[in-house]
């Protein structure tokens, strides 16, 4: 079983839709969960990170962690064409150095 699973999509939604992106993970000891966004032909950049369980909100973006289910989510409200990108979940391994990555979900928001 992979340590982090993420459906690669692609996901295509109309502008204004609510988008839900998800990952599951296998190790209950993981505590730091991140979402990176990668535009075409660019390196990934950090969008949000959360520690342990709960929600974190930043503008139109909400990151959610459910440790009991080992499930992490990123919600995008009022999606915009500029949100079209690949979204990667990443989990910080216990030694604080290595990130374990999902495959990334490709999102297209259509005007």
């Amino acid at each position, binding site marked *: 079983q992979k340590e982090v699973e993420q459906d690669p999509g692609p996901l295509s939604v109309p502008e204004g839709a609510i988008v839900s992106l998800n990952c599951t993970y296998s190790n209950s000891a993981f505590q730091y969960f991140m979402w990176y966004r990668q535009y075409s032909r660019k*390196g990934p950049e950090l969008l949000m990170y959360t520690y342990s369980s709960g929600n974190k909100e930043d503008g139109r973006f909400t990151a959610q962690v459910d440790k009991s289910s080992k499930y992490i989510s990123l919600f995008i409200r009022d999606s915009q064409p500029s949100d079209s990108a690949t979204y990667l979940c990443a989990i910080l391994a216990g030694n604080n150095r290595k990130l374990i990555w999902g495959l990334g979900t490709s999102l297209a928001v259509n005007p």
Partner: protein
Amino acid sequence: DVKVTQSSRYLVKRTGEKVFLECVQDMDHENMFWYRQDPGLGLRLIYFSYDVKMKEKGDIPEGYSVSREKKERFSLILESASTNQTSMYLCASSSLDRVGTEAFFGQGTRLTVV
């Protein structure tokens, strides 16, 4: 602004050549990483380094080596390039100090081996 700079955006090399990919960061980060990114396989860690002259193998180190002589510079070396090393290579750096710290990425090098 944090900057991670990779020496080339696009590179074409011949099979068997020795290839050097250079990465420089300007934030005094301890950790530096080399990844390759392929469709359907995601980001895969090749090597990482958490200090000068220190290195650790990642998930796919075969056919690669690295060098970290100075804190700000981390080089990836393809000893004898092969066509299956055609890929997007991404360098990243992060700080050891902050828990849950962000990894900053370079813009990537698209390497084609012919």
